[in-house]
């Protein structure tokens, strides 16, 4: 079998004069085990592979892909991509990434132990998590308990001299819970991730899944008012994900970011220093190269509340009069790279969550959110999300609340940050979690 890099190399070798060609080739696989009541409900073992080819000629771009590495299919993909070039509008900034001299920070992204883990062990992990979860509270049921692992190998090559390949794997366990009390049911979840099962903390995942469901029992719909909001690390990481879309260089050049033309301005609280650093090995989404094959690197986005800069791919960088920041993001072989943050971290503060809560006289601790995708518009900045959590009164955590929203605007929320905790949690997202306290938001309930 040819190596993925060989396949990519062979494609770009067919470039005709005046053509710029990029080939991205990948092969991936996953195992999913779902356990319910001590039995395997399903076991999925899946592998797939494919190629995406981008052709640029005279500033016009065409793209095609196929979910196979069959030679005849690859020839067809190249022909389709070439044909698609005819229909693009010439764009003076169109082009591929070129080597930029930035060295790759090597990372350990592959674990041999996981690659050879026995099937029985995978099933046992899911069963063990279910057992542990049921051990804390008699009111708790398990909806499903899961083990998953995945690997991906990929290679990219282009006619501008990029030639990179790599592979990574990882695994996670997760459990969904239900807690019943009379007619009432509440839900929770817990998870643990790692490069290998040795890194799992099953007991913590189980306890969190049990606690998340039971602590909401008896939750009421709160009345509407303005108050201080404390975002739990898990929620804060999702909030940073929304913030990142305003720092996307492509959104900026196309006029879709509320922070365009604001570099150098105070856009957030002085406590707010945000970096994107995929070279930090603690990050779940740590990586050595970006979606175009350039070295991933550390970028400061907001420094002491002052907007420092945006993240770019080679295209958005070129068009913005700067260079790629190594932030091309590729969703697999079926699409061309976009732009995005890879591994964000907010500079932590000095105190733990409990101490921050002790300072809040009237507030709410937000422990889960829903509808971040539907009620937040990162272009206008309008922010409104469904939430559940616990009220805070005179520094004390009070009763659970649910079926309410918290709302403000992104612009105001960033300026209203009054505390950041020291409780950095490397969650399986593109941002690390850390407690964030926001001075003033509107809670809508009864």
């Amino acid at each position, binding site marked *: 079998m040819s190596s993925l890099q060989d396949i990519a190399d062979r494609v770009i070798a067919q470039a005709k004069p005046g053509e710029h060609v990029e080939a991205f080739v990948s092969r991936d696989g996953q195992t999913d085990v779902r356990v319910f009541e001590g039995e*395997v*409900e*399903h*076991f*999925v*073992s*899946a592998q*797939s592979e494919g190629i995406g080819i981008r052709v640029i000629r005279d500033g016009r*771009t*065409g*793209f*095609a*892909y*196929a*979910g*196979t590495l069959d030679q005849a299919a690859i020839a067809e*993909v190249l022909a389709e*991509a070439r*044909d*698609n070039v*005819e*229909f*693009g*509008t010439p*764009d003076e900034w169109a082009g591929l990434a070129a080597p930029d001299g930035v060295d790759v920070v090597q990372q350990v992204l592959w674990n041999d132990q996981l690659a050879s883990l026995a099937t029985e062990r995978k099933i046992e992990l899911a069963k063990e998590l279910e057992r542990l979860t049921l051990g804390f509270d008699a009111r708790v*049921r398990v*909806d499903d308990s899961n083990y998953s692992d995945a690997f991906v190998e990929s290679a990219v090559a282009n006619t501008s001299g990029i030639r990179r390949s790599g592979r990574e794997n990882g695994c996670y366990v997760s459990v969904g819970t*239900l807690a019943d009390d009379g007619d009432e*049911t*509440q*839900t929770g979840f817990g998870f643990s991730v790692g490069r290998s099962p040795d890194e799992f903390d099953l007991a913590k995942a189980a306890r969190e899944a049990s606690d998340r469901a039971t602590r909401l029992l008896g939750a009421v*719909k709160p009345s*509407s*008012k*303005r108050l201080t909001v404390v975002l739990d690390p898990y929620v804060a990481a999702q909030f940073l994900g929304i913030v990142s879309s305003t720092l996307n260089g492509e959104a900026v050049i*196309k*006029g*879709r970011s*509320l922070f365009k033309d604001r570099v150098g301005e105070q856009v957030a609280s002085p406590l707010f220093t945000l970096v994107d650093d995929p070279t930090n090995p603690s990050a779940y989404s740590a990586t050595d190269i970006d979606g175009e094959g350039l070295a991933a690197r550390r970028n400061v986005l907001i420094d002491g509340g002052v907007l420092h800069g945006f993240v770019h791919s080679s295209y958005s960088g070129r068009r913005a009069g700067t260079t790629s920041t190594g932030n091309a993001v590729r969703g697999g072989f079926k*699409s*061309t790279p976009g732009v995005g943050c890879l591994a964000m971290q907010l500079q932590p503060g000095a105190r733990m969550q409990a101490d921050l809560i002790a300072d809040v006289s009237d507030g709410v601790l937000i422990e889960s959110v*829903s*509808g971040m*995708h*539907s*009620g937040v518009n990162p*272009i*206008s900045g*309008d922010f*409104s*999300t*469904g939430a*559940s959590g616990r009220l805070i009164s005179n520094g004390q955590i009070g009763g659970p609340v649910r*079926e*309410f*929203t918290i*709302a*403000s605007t992104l612009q105001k929320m960033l300026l209203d940050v009054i505390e950041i905790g020291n409780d950095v949690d490397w969650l399986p997202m593109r941002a690390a979690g850390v407690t964030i306290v926001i001075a003033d938001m*509107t809670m*809508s309930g009864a």
Partner: protein
Amino acid sequence: MIEQGVLERVLGLAVRGGAEFAEVFAEDKRSTSASLDDGRVEQVTSGRDRGAGIRVVRGDTTGFAHTADLTETGLCAAAEAAASAASQGGGGVRTIALTSRAGTKVNTVERYPDEVSKSTKVELLKRVDDAARSAGASIVQVSAGYGDSRRRILVANTDGVLATDEQVRGLMRISVVASGDAGMQTGFQSVGQTVGFEMFDNIDIEELARDAARQAMVKLGARPAPSGSMPVVIKQGSGGVLFHEACGHGLEADLVSKNSSVYAGKTGELVASPLVTLVDDGTMSTEWGTIGIDDEGHPSAYNVLIRDGILTDYMWDYLRARKEGRAQSGNGRRQSYMHLPMVRMTNTYVLNGTEEPDDIIRATDHGVYIAKLGGGSVNTATGDFVFGMTEAYLIEGGEITEPLREGNLIGNGPQVLRDIDLLGNDFAMGNPGTCGKDGQGVPVGDGQPTLRVKALTIGGTAT
């Protein structure tokens, strides 16, 4: 796609170890998409996805494997992997004889999208861009996406079912940004149908583009949405997602069977206002969620879920129906051959009531009128759901007055169903949607007449 003899041998191999059920799902999908942004046709993309997923069920355990190799060798390897995943044991040989089964005839495709030139498709994008940009001086950005697909599927299983379907879809999405003194606002419109390229002969895409532009411009002068509980009137064809989230997911038999739905054990009970009759209908001629067969080979169907407020039935796939010893309902769907099927909705809608829509607004002294809802999500176990309002207005003294900025609404499904107190006579289907569940997305439709919910919580900032 695959010869019948090969299918019969592969299925035989899959159950040789003693499994009760095996299924081959094969798919060959060709798609084209084109995107326009910032005044440029950025890219035309062609895609090909082809492969088969093999499922083997033994007791309560399902094993699943898939392959992009549709030769007998490739299929047999996947069958063995799936069988081994469902665990070994037993023995014996079963002979499988397949009989072709017809799907529901939903419509006739006149022009397959792969027979239409790419330049014709790209031209649609340019028309959209021109129309949106000429809608007003405050329009600063337009992006549009065209997509089509031709998906052939084949399902064969050890119950002897052999069924095929061809699903042809076309889609246009339009996003517009307007800029004013108070910042930027956005507008969105889309259309999607399960039919050939002739759909664009019957749809005024310029009008859709102007409507997206209008939404963005209207919101430039919008005031912050209110905060708190109040009556909400939802315009025809814009609030089907309410039912999709508030009760549709809770009526999926896989969630019901695990008792993780608030509607579990409620058949025959009054679960909604007597005004409400809710249907899931995969047979509608050209709607986005329409299918000839589901992804388990069962013909699509018209299923009444709630009749006059009383819960009549859930939606079913093969596994859950088998467990209950009843018939499937044509709701076993999957994203692609790489995925296991689950219980999924198709087109979910509420039938007409009797009120004139204007009367519903006039009957509301103070509240919110929602002309367009965004996406939503639900916790099926508690019934709590949210959805975004992307175009909304205040109702004051029985009249629609000022536009509102965006926000989420939040409510509890069973409560909201009971709180529907006025139902219009102006049924319309809404925008095409992609429903996500367990990481899989499938096309779905929704619809409803204008209606009023007595009380819903609006998640704005104006107190």
